[in-house]
């Protein structure tokens, strides 16, 4: 469920990403065909993502995205409390941008479907170029309605609503430096936990020393994230980028994200290396092992709510082809991206080791994420 909800947030980001590049210019016509593969921690997720964007006249641009996650999971959560499963999620987004003067208005709708989860999202944004296009200000609002079901209980139906408010500012600082600032608040209300997940508590009547019961999250959550990026053009035609994001929410999660990347063109090739560092404090109601059943009003044992450090190493190679155009195609690129994701959990324990209760070693996730995609501009 966590993975599914993340998909909705990302799809709204995609709508924004595929939206206006600048206040008074519509985005280029393009098509992207991507195949993704995530492999780590007993989980394999793969599938395509296809995006097409096309102008209709000088002031309107349409965009559509089709995305699939094919999930095969025997994760640490699954092997310790349930049975491995396979699942598929399909997501379709369509949107439109309307340009008038220096202002671009964008609307989009997204539907995400799987056997036990449905989400519909609606987004609206306004982007305004100012000060000779040195500044672009974007205001965005999105609403998401989720329906949560259980595959083993036809009578189980719960709902959750989510609202997104964001302000984005892109600013040219010098002829070599551009910066972006983004502030985003998200509010949730409804059934926010995963209906399948459980928490662990001490139970002396059980021979293994502990038992499980259903997790229980608060029915509301409000989060705020502030992100800043700066990209600088180096004298020998290369680019370096720095990023920082601060995040806090009403569940007590507080995180810092920092990243640095370097992009170097070489003939028709462009190479990028990136390092991302993420630290997070746990949610107030998280515990790896509760002292007894129903020990607290709210309780969760999702490792995503625990305290941990995540590191990501990225290598990307892009090759430009058809640079002089061919038929209706102006240019194209083929891209390969490899991400190494390492997460060291501080207080989420690996129960597969058979150690004494409460003294199991902390879990570590090591995953590889692969993307291959072709982009065509026309």
């Amino acid at each position, binding site marked *: 469920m966590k993975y599914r909800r993340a998909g909705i947030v990302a799809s709204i980001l995609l709508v924004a990403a595929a939206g206006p590049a600048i206040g008074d210019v519509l985005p280029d016509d393009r098509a992207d065909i991507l195949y993704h593969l995530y492999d780590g921690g007993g989980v394999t997720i793969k599938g395509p993502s296809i995006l097409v964007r096309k102008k209709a006249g000088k002031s309107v641009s349409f965009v559509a995205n089709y995305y699939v996650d094919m999930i095969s999971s025997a994760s640490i959560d699954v092997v310790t409390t349930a049975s491995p499963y396979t699942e598929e999620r399909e997501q379709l987004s369509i949107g439109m941008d309307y340009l008038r003067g220096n202002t671009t208005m964008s609307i989009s709708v997204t539907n995400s479907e799987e056997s036990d989860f449905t989400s519909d999202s609606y987004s609206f944004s306004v982007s305004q170029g100012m000060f*000779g296009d040195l500044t672009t200000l974007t205001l965005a609002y999105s609403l998401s309605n989720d329906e949560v079901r259980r595959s083993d209980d036809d009578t189980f139906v719960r709902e959750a609503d989510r609202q997104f408010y964001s302000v984005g500012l892109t600013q040219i600082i010098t002829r070599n430096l551009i910066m972006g600032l983004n502030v985003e608040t998200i509010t949730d209300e409804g059934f926010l936990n995963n209906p399948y997940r459980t928490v662990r508590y001490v139970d002396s009547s059980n021979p293994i020393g502990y038992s499980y019961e259903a997790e229980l999250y608060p029915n509301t959550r409000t989060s705020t994230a502030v992100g800043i990026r700066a990209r600088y053009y180096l004298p020998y035609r290369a680019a370096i980028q720095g990023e920082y*994001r601060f995040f806090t929410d009403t569940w007590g999660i507080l*995180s810092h994200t920092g990243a640095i990347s370097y992009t170097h063109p070489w003939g028709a090739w462009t190479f990028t290396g990136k390092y991302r560092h993420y630290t997070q404090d746990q949610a107030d109601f998280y515990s790896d092992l509760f002292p007894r059943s129903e020990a607290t009003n709210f309780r969760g044992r999702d490792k995503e709510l625990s305290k941990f450090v995540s590191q990501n190493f990225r290598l990307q190679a892009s090759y430009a082809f058809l640079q002089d155009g061919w038929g209706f195609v102006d240019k194209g690129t083929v891209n390969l991206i490899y991400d190494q994701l390492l997460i060291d959990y501080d207080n989420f324990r690996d129960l597969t080791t058979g150690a004494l209760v409460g003294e199991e070693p902390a879990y570590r996730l090591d995953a590889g994420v692969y993307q291959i995609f072709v982009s065509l501009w026309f």
Partner: protein
Amino acid sequence: MKTTPIFRLLLPMLLFAGLSACGPIEPWVKPYERDRLADPIMSLDPDPVSTAYTHHVFEAREGSRGGEGNSGGGCGCN
């Protein structure tokens, strides 16, 4: 009259703010000076499909969400 350091710092800013209110702000990076910013390697988000997927992966594995920034972008060089 003696001025404090903070006043000396604030005075030019107040003057600038006052002058700004009298007329449009002149772009300090002219359109013909934006050739480097127009270079594809300077795009803050050149691959939106890939970026959305990457955010999806991070949001699934981490407790945080949003604020990574995709609004805006570009450099007004077109």
